[in-house]
């Protein structure tokens, strides 16, 4: 039996003149692999991300959906929003099921059992799957370098099960597994696992990047770079959850920018060729974390000292990216300088209402 060479797709990178601009881009493909008709909440960040990423990938694509919102809320039996093949897999099987699909196509094309260009194989894992239960399976897929893209749609919690803390939930984030109370005024005490950096450090031969729904062209280009990369790629995308973050539904994209402008979600790329991080992404402006926090009910219980702690965390992220900190942000990391913040009593009342 002759071995057939596997042909791979090359997707064009979109022109991205202005990170923050909101305008119609005529270069976007008209195909819609992810169509309306699903049951996600209004303003759902993960589903906005889903539409962008699948659009960037195009029609020769296979999607893998480990258990999570993008499984449960998207797919209802006899009604499905996927115009390309999609399969559910177990929440801990994100990397492994995807690896199986990729391996099958490598073998089937090579052995002449399937004819065509190697499909884009994309796994859409929530942060619970990616950072907790499916971490080993994703690491295995990246390590073995299957030609696939694993996306973590990071809504910083287990949202589908009713808002529980994951290892991506930020410090101070209220969830049903990390509620605030007199003994735990800040709610979540732990800082999030630096998952994307872990993936880059541990699998330096892979393309790894972070992105946010606030910057659609940047996100779509990273999807295409990840797919064009021959081998495994990992993309971590900030996708706000209206139900868990408790904000006004039209503000999902705003939050997607604010989280970057406040330094809480550094946007970067790891280049497997250069073996280096690229920190050149800069948001239009830099803001104190309070501007991001105050829009969300999940942070309504925070005291000045907790906000200062989060500012300190954000400042460390800026420094890591090589950004010089303006004086107001340094000042904001000291609780004494935070005025007009909620008192403990007021904060408790806010927590009560959300």
């Amino acid at each position: 039996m002759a071995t057939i060479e596997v042909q791979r797709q090359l997707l064009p990178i979109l022109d991205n003149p202005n990170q923050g601009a909101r305008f119609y881009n005529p270069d976007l493909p008209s195909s819609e692999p992810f169509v309306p008709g699903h049951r996600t909440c209004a303003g759902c960040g993960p589903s906005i991300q889903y539409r962008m990423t699948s659009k960037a990938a195009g029609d020769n694509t296979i999607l893998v959906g480990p258990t999570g919102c993008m499984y449960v809320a998207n797919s209802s039996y006899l009604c499905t929003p996927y115009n390309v093949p999609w399969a559910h897999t177990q929440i801990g099987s994100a990397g492994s099921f995807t690896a199986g699909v990729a391996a099958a196509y490598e073998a089937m094309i090579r052995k002449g059992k399937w004819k065509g260009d190697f499909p884009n194989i994309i796994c859409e894992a929530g942060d619970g799957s990616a950072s907790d239960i499916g971490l080993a399976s994703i690491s295995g897929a990246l390590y073995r370098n299957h030609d696939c893209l694993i996306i973590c749609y990071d809504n910083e919690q287990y949202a589908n099960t009713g808002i529980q803390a994951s290892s991506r939930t930020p410090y101070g984030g209220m969830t049903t597994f990390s509620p605030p109370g007199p003994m735990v005024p800040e709610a979540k005490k732990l800082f999030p696992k630096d998952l994307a950096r872990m993936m880059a450090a541990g699998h330096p031969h892979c393309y790894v990047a972070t992105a946010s729904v606030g910057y659609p062209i940047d996100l779509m280009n990273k999807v295409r770079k990840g797919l064009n990369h021959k081998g495994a790629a990992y993309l971590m995308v900030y996708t706000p959850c209206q139900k868990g973050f408790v904000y006004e539904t039209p503000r999902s994209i705003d939050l997607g920018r604010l989280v970057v402008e406040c330094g809480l979600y550094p946007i970067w790329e790891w280049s497997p060729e250069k073996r280096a991080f690229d920190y050149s992404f800069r948001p239009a402006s830099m803001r104190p974390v309070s501007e991001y926090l105050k829009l969300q009910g999940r942070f309504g219980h925070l005291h000045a000292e907790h906000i200062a702690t989060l500012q300190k965390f954000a400042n460390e992220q800026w420094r890591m990216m090589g950004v010089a900190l303006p004086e107001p942000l340094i000042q904001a990391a000291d609780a004494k300088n935070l005025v007009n913040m909620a008192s403990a009593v007021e904060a408790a009342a806010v927590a009560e209402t959300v």
Partner: protein
Amino acid sequence: MPTATAGKKKTVRINGCVAAAQAAKYADVDVIAAYPIRPYTATMMALAQMVANGELDAEYIVADSEHSQLSISHGASSSGARVFTGSSGVGVQFAYELYSPISGSRMPVQMMIADRTLDPPGDFGSEHTDALSTRDMGWLMGWSCDAQEAFDNHLMAYRIGEDPRVLLPQMVCQDGFFVSHITSDVELPDAGQVKEFLPPYKHPYPLDPRHPVSHGPQIMPEQGPPLQLERARAMEDSMAVIEEVHEEFAKIFGRRYDPWIEEFMTDGADVVFFMQGGHAVTARFAIQHMRDQGLKVGLVRLRTIRPYPTDRVKEVLSKFKVVGVIETNMGLGSVSSGGVLYAEACAALYESDRRPLVLSFMAGMGGEAIVRKEFYWMTEKMMEAQKRGKIEKRTHWVGFEE
């Protein structure tokens, strides 16, 4: 690259593990998911070498766990590839979550199991509890008793599981060490015979970008039962296919197996052993010896436990006065407070109008060999029960009693 199925018919001396690997090679599998655990590991070692030598063109994946092995297999099978995986003991348990999703999505993944005792404590010995604990998850399941039968069962299982009337995964089991690591003569077929017997894998609804399908969307409670019923029916429908495939196998390869039950020296027998797997080989010797001394003892070996041949078991076991179930598995606090096979035998006999007495023997536990004198001892117990006409003690831990 040489083809996977090159070569003429020949007899080789190999163990059960290598026989399973040979079967996977003849089946020209596309994706192999490996993870080490004794004793099945030798199968994956053999396959790794075949791939390295270019004897088999397959994606050989060293997975990060058994859970991943089964998920990789699920993904690859869903994409249209023929898949081979396997495990032993606690490894079988680590992958437990995947058994129902794989059979529920009707993916004919094949898994080789060389049994191993479950922990605690770490025991390398063979016990059927690992695979038997998954027996109701919708996988076709049966035991081989020697390397040749293992080879044959693997080939037949692909043909049965991939049949569009069935589409179910298969666990092809063999006793760890007693079968997996004991060498014997195995006839490897001619490539042409396998080609005639096993058509290429073709799932009707694979994950193919040209024909988009959604696998496993979320269902509402009222949508659950029809899907479960379909899976149950596939299991029932597989029975006719299993018989058909065994018949065709006999025609092409010249080896004929009863798909459900092997009867050995049961003519005129009063008492019989009811068991699965490799210890049956010793049982045959012991029975031969006892027959020479005039004892009316025989052997009924179950070859397929899922789907369970209820009517056949009823019909066969009803012919005897006493049935001694040799468990080689643990069913703590179960019906007999011994193993789980007792309940399967008794349930099949419930509707019989000539019910034999049934005893449960806890033998071959922890991977201990069941030696001939234990077969003699168990036969004595069965004959005592026959004489009394009733059961005084339902379960015997062999080797712990006078």
